[in-house]
């Protein structure tokens, strides 16, 4: 059985906000690739990130740990990491671990962008 690779696309929504779209399943074997991609964005100074998970059907706790690390790094840089397109099964995991209270979660890309203009 082949291992489904994660694919990652990054695009600038404007001069300050970047959208990272993930495709595939994020388990412990794939989470490092996601972590590397997020770190590359921070290294470029892209600290306001929207992470689109609409094409992600599966994520394990290792994958969530990578996202939490990225969220912490974004916050330390006075930025933020906003999740959008979170499927019910992933939202269930976030709720069990209590991460739904940590991550800003938006239903649409527009709402996600609005997170960056609100006072924190």
């Amino acid at each position, binding site marked *: *059985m082949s*291992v*489904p690779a994660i694919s990652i696309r990054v695009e600038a929504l404007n001069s300050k906000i970047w959208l990272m779209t993930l495709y595939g*399943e994020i*388990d*412990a*074997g794939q989470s490092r690739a996601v972590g590397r991609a997020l770190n590359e964005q921070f290294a470029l100074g892209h600290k306001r990130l929207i992470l689109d998970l609409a094409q992600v059907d*599966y994520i*394990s*706790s*290792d994958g*969530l*740990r990578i996202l*939490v690390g990225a969220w*912490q790094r974004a916050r330390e840089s006075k930025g933020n990491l906003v999740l959008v397109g979170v499927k019910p*099964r992933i939202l269930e*995991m976030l709720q*069990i*671990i*209590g991460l739904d*209270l*940590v991550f800003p979660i938006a239903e649409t890309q527009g709402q996600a962008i609005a997170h960056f203009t609100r006072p924190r």
Partner: protein
Amino acid sequence: MDERHLQIKGSLEAIVQARHFVHQAALDAGLSEQAAHHCALAVDEACTNIVEHGYRGEGTNQVIDISCRKDDNGFVITVLDDSPAFDPLAVPDPNPAASMNEREPGGWGVFLIKKLMDDVVYDRQNSRNRLLMMKRL
């Protein structure tokens, strides 16, 4: 449903096989898609712990044995490994209400297994770690 068995290498890259194997077996046993997802996630978390903490990332020459069966109580997944004796259920639960700064790293995987499955038992069998995870039908 007849009992099914799968043996995978003790590497992170092999865990996807266990996940898909358990997901299909759970569906064939009559579980809902959501319950089958819970079972797949539980076996993923169990195997990931074995590879990362039991085999310490050096398990490519070691194996994990997974079996699935349906009994009167529900759908039962058994995971066997050869790492040193370790009871994952003894790991303290993380506090989901704590802030990130207050949380200890780790423990999420086992916590998810406990929350998503209806019964979880650890014991030793023939010098191997055995984790049984049951989902009611």
